[in-house]
Structures are given as structure tokens and as C-alpha cells.
């Protein structure tokens, strides 16, 4: 790989990617246009933008769930063509299999990877414990709260040990308190097992708190407006009172607000 260097061996390279939704009825919608972005190995990148800017679309393209129509995406030097266990995904609405218990949900991917039974069981137990759900192994998702469901989803994804973690507003559906606890847990988990993370959110503070870099996207059609390095701030719950943290949040807020206004104008016009 000639230019694997730029993104690092396990990093993500997105070059000139565009995407247009063509609904069966109605006009086609250009969600993404000429998006280029690189994420270094073990870097945490937050994708920030107004709703409808195509940030989830970009994440689904990296995941291989949508066909890449123009440009190219490679993860760890391999072009993305289909979903794969090298890229773990955590969806906004958990996407747990409701007919499987907590343990069965976590085991599903491990079974698909044909791990020996003893190892599967041990790994599932370890990751369920890691997200503090031991004791709930035999519960069904319908019996759990939103925060617990999302912890199962995270355990299920992490148990597969993917090099890349794709998270689509994973904490968007949770209340503020649970969300704050989940932030701490996620950072603690990543400290133990380093991963390349792309984290979609529309919450500026969350982005600055968790990420090494924040990429702000423009209103539709989505492009990368600016990329801000925030590695030196955040990383802990009390960071939000750090003046430098507040400064970065304010700056990014301004960037996102301009785009949100542009999106509104676009919608009205």
C-alpha cells in the first residue's frame, strides 16, 4: 500500500466519496458530495453536523452497508466492499436481536466467527461483565432499560474485537445522566483496548469530550467543512469546566449553527 502511511495501517481513508439517495418516488437527494477524510489508526474521530447532513450515511458507507457510488473508502488498506467483522457497529437504536437474551446477543457474532465454544462463552461473560450487566445474561432486551440495551450493543460489538468501531449517535436516545456514565465507560474501555473510532453525533460537547479530532459537516449535500483537533481537551467528565474545553465547544458550536441555519434556509427555499 503506497499511501497507507497517511491513515496508518489500521486507519480509514475516505477519498472523494459521494452518495445520492434515489427514492422510488420523488427527486433524488444528494446526501454526500466529494467527502475526503482520513482517520489514523486508534484515533477517535467525531463526525458532527446538523441533522440530515449525511453523517450517518458516511458511517454506513464505511460499514459497507450502502454501495459506494463514487470515490473510494479503505479500512486498514483494504477497500470497503461489504460489511465485515473488522468493523464493529453500534447503532442509535441498539439493533439488538429482541428474541435473543443478553448472552445470546453477545454470542451471535462470536459464533459466526467460529470461535471454540469455551472461548466464546468466556469472552461473552467477560464483555457482559465489562459493561456491568452480569446478572442480566438471561434477560431479553425488552426487559432492559435504554442504557442497559445500549451497553449490551456495545458489549456485543466489542466482544468481536473489531479494529474499527463505528458508532451512530449511540447515546442519542439516552437521558443525560445515563449518557454521561456511558461516556466514562466508553473512554475507559478504549483505554484498555485501543481502536479506531468514528463517532457520529450532533452533540458538540459529546464530540469534544470523547474525540481526538472533530470533523464538522456542512448542511446537505454533506461535505467536510472543517476538522478541529481536540485531543488536548476532554477525556474526563470534569474536563467540561476547563476553559480550553469551553473555547473549543464554543468554536464548534458556531460552525455547526451556521450549517443548521443553512439547512433551515435550504429547507424553506
Amino acid at each position, binding site marked *: 500500500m503506497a499511501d497507507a502511511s497517511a491513515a496508518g495501517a489500521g486507519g480509514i481513508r475516505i477519498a472523494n466519496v459521494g452518495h445520492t439517495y434515489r427514492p422510488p418516488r420523488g427527486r433524488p437527494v444528494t446526501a454526500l458530495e466529494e467527502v475526503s477524510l482520513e482517520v489514523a489508526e486508534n484515533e477517535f474521530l467525531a463526525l458532527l453536523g446538523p441533522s440530515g447532513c449525511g453523517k450517518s450515511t458516511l458511517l454506513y458507507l464505511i460499514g459497507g452497508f450502502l454501495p459506494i457510488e463514487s470515490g473510494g473508502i479503505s479500512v486498514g488498506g483494504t477497500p470497503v466492499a461489504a460489511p465485515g*467483522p473488522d468493523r464493529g*457497529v453500534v447503532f442509535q*437504536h441498539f439493533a439488538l436481536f429482541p*428474541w*435473543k437474551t443478553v448472552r445470546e446477543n453477545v454470542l451471535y*457474532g462470536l459464533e*459466526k*466467527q467460529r470461535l471454540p465454544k469455551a472461548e466464546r462463552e468466556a469472552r461473552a461473560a467477560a464483555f457482559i461483565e465489562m459493561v456491568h450487566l452480569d446478572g442480566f445474561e438471561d434477560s*431479553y432486551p425488552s426487559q432492559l432499560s435504554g442504557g442497559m440495551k445500549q451497553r449490551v450493543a456495545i458489549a456485543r460489538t466489542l466482544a468481536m474485537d473489531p479494529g474499527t468501531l463505528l458508532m451512530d449517535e449511540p447515546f442519542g436516545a439516552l437521558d443525560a445522566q445515563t449518557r454521561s456514565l456511558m461516556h466514562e465507560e466508553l473512554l475507559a474501555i478504549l483505554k484498555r483496548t485501543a481502536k479506531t473510532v468514528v463517532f457520529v453525533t450532533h452533540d458538540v460537547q459529546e464530540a469534544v469530550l470523547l474525540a481526538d479530532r472533530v470533523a464538522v459537516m456542512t448542511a446537505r449535500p454533506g461535505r467536510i467543512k472543517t476538522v478541529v483537533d481536540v485531543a488536548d481537551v476532554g477525556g474526563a467528565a470534569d474536563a467540561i469546566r476547563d476553559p480550553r474545553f469551553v473555547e473549543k465547544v464554543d468554536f464548534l458550536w458556531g460552525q455547526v449553527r451556521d450549517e443548521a441555519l443553512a439547512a433551515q434556509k435550504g429547507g424553506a427555499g
Partner: protein
Amino acid sequence: MTAALWRYTPLFLIAAAWEGAIRAGLMDSSLLPPFSEVMAALGRLVVDPELYRHAAASLMREVAGFGLAVIVGIALGIVMAWYVPVRILVNPLVRCIYPMPKSALIPVMIMWLGLGHLAKIGLIFLGCLLPVIVSAFNAARGVDTVLIWSAQAAGATRRQILTEIVLPASLPEILAGVRTSLALSFVLLVSSEFLMAREGLGYMIAFLGEGGVYDAMFAAVLLVTGIGFAADRAYLAVARRLLVWRE
């Protein structure tokens, strides 16, 4: 137990009204024998080996026709939802056959399959197949895309996604469609046996009616009703077990 008894109070009231109306001379007992006589006839019926010969024939037709319809219907409905060529081929047929009164097929079935078991099995199969196909098709199309994506990201193959994700995710809706089919299967079983049979519970009802043995005929009707009710209850119990994961 007492709660269950209370739930069926209206049935006891109807039985009492039935008996009372005839005793009071409000109804002609040659048209409707008193409830007590029907129950006595039912008592004689259940110890008659003839009943079990007819019941066995009906049961065989019911299980074969309905069972086949459920298996084929679920498979066809899901495959239709998943593979466009199958959908293009099968969907118009389903839409045409769906609203057709299946009992209209009885003469055709006799012509093609004769007077034996096959014609009844064929009729029950065709009648029950469509509600199952339609419910499986709709359910499979409505499966949340992110569930499928989750399975793909875990490394599931296309076939595994169908059997391990689409099928269980569709189950609640499929089970509702199958229940409709179960009720329909009894209608088709009995009505086909009325018209074209030498054995079976439907045949027995027709035979007793023609012979003027009304108390036994009503007893047989009550028995078939009871079997249908029990089948539905048993089905609900099984469905509830299959869906324990729902709230």
C-alpha cells in the same frame, strides 16, 4: 379455575336459555332438540368407535393440509420478500388467489384429486396457504434494516440472515397469520367433508342430519366446535411460548 368458570358464564347462560326455550314450548323440539338431549347424545357419541374412525380421518387431513400450508407459506412468503425474481413471479398469483372463496374450489378438487383424502388436504392447503404467505411476506419486508446490518457486520451469510434474523424477527406477525389459517382450516375441512366424503367429522354431521338424528347431529356440531376451540387455545399457548421474548 373459578376465574375460568366465570369467563365462560355466557356459554352456560346460552345453554340454559336453549333448554328453557324448548321446555317452555317457545321453540319446536324437532328443529332444535333440548340441550339436555344433545348432551346425552354427546355422551353416547364419545363412546362410539365410529366417532374415532371419522375423527382420525379428519385429523389426518387437517394436520397434513394445515401443516403443509404453514411450512410452505412461511418459506414462500419470506423468499418472496427477499428475492425479487420470486416476488415478480409469485406475487400476482397470490394477489389473484387471495380474495377467491376457497370453497369454490371443492368441485375442482374432486375432479382433480378424487373423493379421497387428497382432495381435502389440497383444499385446506390452498386455503390456508395464502394468509400464511401474505403475513410472512409483509413481516419479512418489515424487518428492521439495522438488524440485518448487525448480522452482516457479525459475518452472517445470506442464508443465515434469512433463517436466523428474518424468520425470528417476522415470527410475531407470522403467528397471527397462522392463527387465521387455523380457523379457516376447520371451515374448509368440515365443508369439504359435507360435500365429498365417506368419512370424517363433516361427513358424520351431514350423515346424521340426513338421517334425522338431530340430537346426535347437534352433538357432533358441538364436538367439532369444541375441537376447534381447543386447537385455537393450544395454538395460543404455543405462540406465547415462542414469543416469551416480547414484553
